[in-house]
């Protein structure tokens, strides 16, 4: 008899409901890919076997969340489901005002419509695609200030998501009057799902205080970030995840949120903040584009699912399983010689496509090429996070992104270890023929957020 923990970390749940998947042949996938213009966003989901396009809205809800779906009250104004949602949010994030939105980008849209305008600059460790788009849409400039380690995929550092505090200080020293607020994205998605330390948040807060600037969190993956703080930062090993989350929130003046990530919901988001005047302005904007402030463009049932999900996602058993299962995938790929971003992030494993496909110029989109190859090989859908997503400047010119990554985002509680084992084989097979993969050329693209609808063709 021993109380020593087992090495195998199992899922802290069993399966309540399943969804059949459709197998496809290589010939079918080749045809589907061509029909989609080599853009995986354009594939029909029925043609995808393992869908790692995103961890956003794709998680499996719990039986309790489904019970919330049944319980949802659909009153247009003042629904009890809203008050349950409000309670759950303010328990973790005690901000004065909480505005539900249909999803995260709507919260960003409202915030930056209220405070953005030409001439302003919004710093962040790394802006995510929709954040950047909403800031640029307002005429303001989105500036990334990651720590240098965050830009080198192969460097191991416990908090590669940190914001470069010295760079922030320099920016504010030069042009404080043009910065309406400072943002920190936890975890840093575009930088590989890397966490931000409490010490870094505290240092950013101190700089913000010195210049009198509000600090907003893009908090989509707050629970995963809090778990990394607990695991890696001195002094937090015995602190409950929920308390770490509250401490993070306590350092900020507001947050934008997509409930489709850590809160385990399929839809929803919110904007929360302390400033009364800004909140009033945001509420008016919310009504225009989202819905009345007690439903924000969500069905009452979705507010219930978010409220329940918020209590589940800070569970330590859940987070241990979640983070461990992502690392399982990462370790296996590393062992197979695939260049991956280390240490492994919270929600995804990021393959360094620029390193893996060294023969492809970044402006020929090595990430897009690799993502297409993974689909063709095994029906795996991943997402390019690189020059396709970030390379197009507002003036129409193109520059290579800092990194060319392919993200294998793991939906929460959806896939099993055997799905991951299959995936590992698919990646390893593609890695063997990496040298032969073609570059890509854009055939047509929109002016903004081109990665969603651009069409490509292989070159060479």
């Amino acid at each position, binding site marked *: 008899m021993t109380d020593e923990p087992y090495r195998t970390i199992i899922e802290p749940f069993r399966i309540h409901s399943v969804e059949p998947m459709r197998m496809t042949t290589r010939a079918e996938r080749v045809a589907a890919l061509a029909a989609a213009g080599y853009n995986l966003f354009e594939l029909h989901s029925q043609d995808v076997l393992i869908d790692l*396009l995103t961890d956003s*809205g794709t998680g499996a809800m719990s039986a309790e969340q489904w019970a919330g779906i049944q319980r949802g009250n659909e*009153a247009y104004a003042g629904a009890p489901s809203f008050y349950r949602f409000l309670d759950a949010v303010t328990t973790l994030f005690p901000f004065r005002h909480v505005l539900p939105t*249909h*999803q995260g980008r709507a919260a960003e849209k409202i915030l930056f419509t209220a405070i953005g305008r030409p001439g302003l600059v919004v710093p962040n460790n790394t802006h995510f695609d929709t954040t950047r*788009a909403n800031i640029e849409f307002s005429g303001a400039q989105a500036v990334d200030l990651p720590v240098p380690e965050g830009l080198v995929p192969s460097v191991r550092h416990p908090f590669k998501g940190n914001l470069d505090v010295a760079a922030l200080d320099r920016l504010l020293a030069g042009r404080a009057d043009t910065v309406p607020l400072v943002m920190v994205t936890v975890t840093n998605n575009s930088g590989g799902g890397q966490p931000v330390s409490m010490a870094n948040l505290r240092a950013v807060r101190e700089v913000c205080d010195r210049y009198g600037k509000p600090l907003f969190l893009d908090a989509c993956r707050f629970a995963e970030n809090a778990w990394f703080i607990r695991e890696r930062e001195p002094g937090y090993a015995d602190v409950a995840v929920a308390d770490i989350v509250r401490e993070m929130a306590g350092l900020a003046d507001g947050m934008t949120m997509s409930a489709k990530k850590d809160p385990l919901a*399929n839809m929803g988001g919110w904007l929360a903040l302390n400033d009364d005047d800004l909140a009033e302005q945001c*509420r008016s904007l919310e009504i225009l584009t989202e819905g009345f402030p007690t439903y924000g463009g969500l069905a009452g049932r979705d507010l219930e699912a978010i409220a329940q999900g918020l209590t589940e996602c800070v569970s330590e058993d859940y987070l241990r399983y979640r983070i461990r299962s992502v690392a399982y995938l990462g370790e296996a790929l590393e062992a197979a010689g695939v260049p991956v971003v280390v240490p492994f992030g919270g929600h995804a494993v990021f393959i360094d496509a620029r390193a893996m496909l060294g023969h492809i110029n970044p402006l020929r989109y090595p990430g897009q090429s690799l993502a297409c190859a993974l689909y063709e090989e095994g029906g795996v859908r991943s997402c390019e996070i690189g020059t396709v997503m970030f390379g197009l400047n507002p003036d129409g010119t193109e520059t290579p992104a800092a990194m060319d990554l392919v993200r294998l985002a793991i939906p929460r509680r959806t896939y099993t270890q055997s799905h991951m084992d299959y995936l590992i084989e698919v990646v390893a097979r593609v890695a063997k023929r990496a040298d032969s993969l073609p570059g890509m050329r854009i055939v047509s693209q929109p002016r903004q957020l081109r990665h969603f*609808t651009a069409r490509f063709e292989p070159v060479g």
Partner: protein
Amino acid sequence: MTSPELPVTTGRQLGRRSWAEPWKIKMVEPLRMTTRAEREEAMAEAGYNTFLLRADDVYIDLLTDSGTNAMSDRQWSGLLLGDEAYAGSRNFYELEDAVRRYYGYQHVVPTHQGRGAEHLISQIAIRPGQFVPGNMYFTTTRTHQELAGGIFEDVIIDEAHDPQSEYPFKGDVDLGKLERLVAREGAQNIAYVSLAGTVNMAGGQPVSMACVRALRGLCDRHGIRLFLDATRMVENSFFIKEREAGYAARSVAEILKEFCSYTDGAWMSAKKDSLVNIGGWLALNDRALFEDARNLVVVYEGLHTYGGLAGRDMAAMAIGIAESVQEEHISSRIGQVRYLGELLDVAGVPFVKPVGGHAIFLDARRFYPQLSQDDLPAQTLAAELYLDSGVRGMERGIVSAGRDPKTGENHHPRLELTRLAIPRRVYTQAHMDIVAEAVQDVYASRAEAKGLTMAYEPRFLRFFQARFERL
């Protein structure tokens, strides 16, 4: 034939055969009763704005028919069959099929609800300074048109502004008004014609097929686009079947498709006709305009194959669209609204006639002749009705009309109405009886009403969040 020994149904008392719902109840939601004292406190706390009440304090919620519908068991099954893939969800293609089949448009962009679609169409189809003629304003529609730089111009027929006119198609456009606007401003300065069926602010009043056909001709002559707010177009189609010559033998589905065929596209809040709790779409026949919409939807709503909706909600919408055009459904739907109208008519309560598709609109001017419009009679009536019985309605008068964006002056709409919107498939005949008695009692004590004044006024769409004080 009625026998005097038998209890007499309400239908018999009203001199007709009773109707019944073409479904039975599968899942219920308990209601909470409140006392007058609790309601006094709740109403004061809500600043005499029914929008600011907690739903738990409401007995019968007629605030809106938007998103408050009861879904069918098939729609609930659709929720479980939701495919939550971020891109290319199966449910998107089901929705696209349903819109193509029943509304007939080529390209479909889902949005999280109707105002998301209004936002998109306004942004892509209006150049600043252009006019947007329409058959009476709707609150969110006009606000989006104005934010895009458009100038709304009301071209509805005059009968629409007269709550006592029994004209069968009070939603029709006055083609003369529209021709004069085009002559005055030039066709190039008209962004598009914004046609709503039915017209909510006029009392849920329908547009005739003859009108939309003539509009199509006018628009073709001048090269102007015609877009439809299809939110309650199924209800509109039912009225055409009932009232317009030549349509009695046609199905509601056929009428809907013919009506849409005269327009270039539509935006939709599926939370009304389509029997869902969330969702909307923008549909367009023009490929280039669709590309614009598709590129913009991703900024505001979500990727164009989910538009800010869970896959399950697109599934429920696709099923709801098919259910919404069933003749038994739509006739029972409108039958229930009419039933409430009959009960109020018998008691002499003033309301907009003929009864519209989705709501009874009480005529607050005639209800409270002692109040001037600046004393907010419709807001007052909504508050009094809640205080009396826990029934929640909505102001549709001077507060909803807002201010002129140029002059800053209050609009003074001719219609000063309190809307009792009936959610679809939610309340029973007994609930309607309660509502009728509540309105009758408030009408009996109408002389005591003193009116309200606005204490807090938000900048946009003020009716949602404004606070009031008693005069």
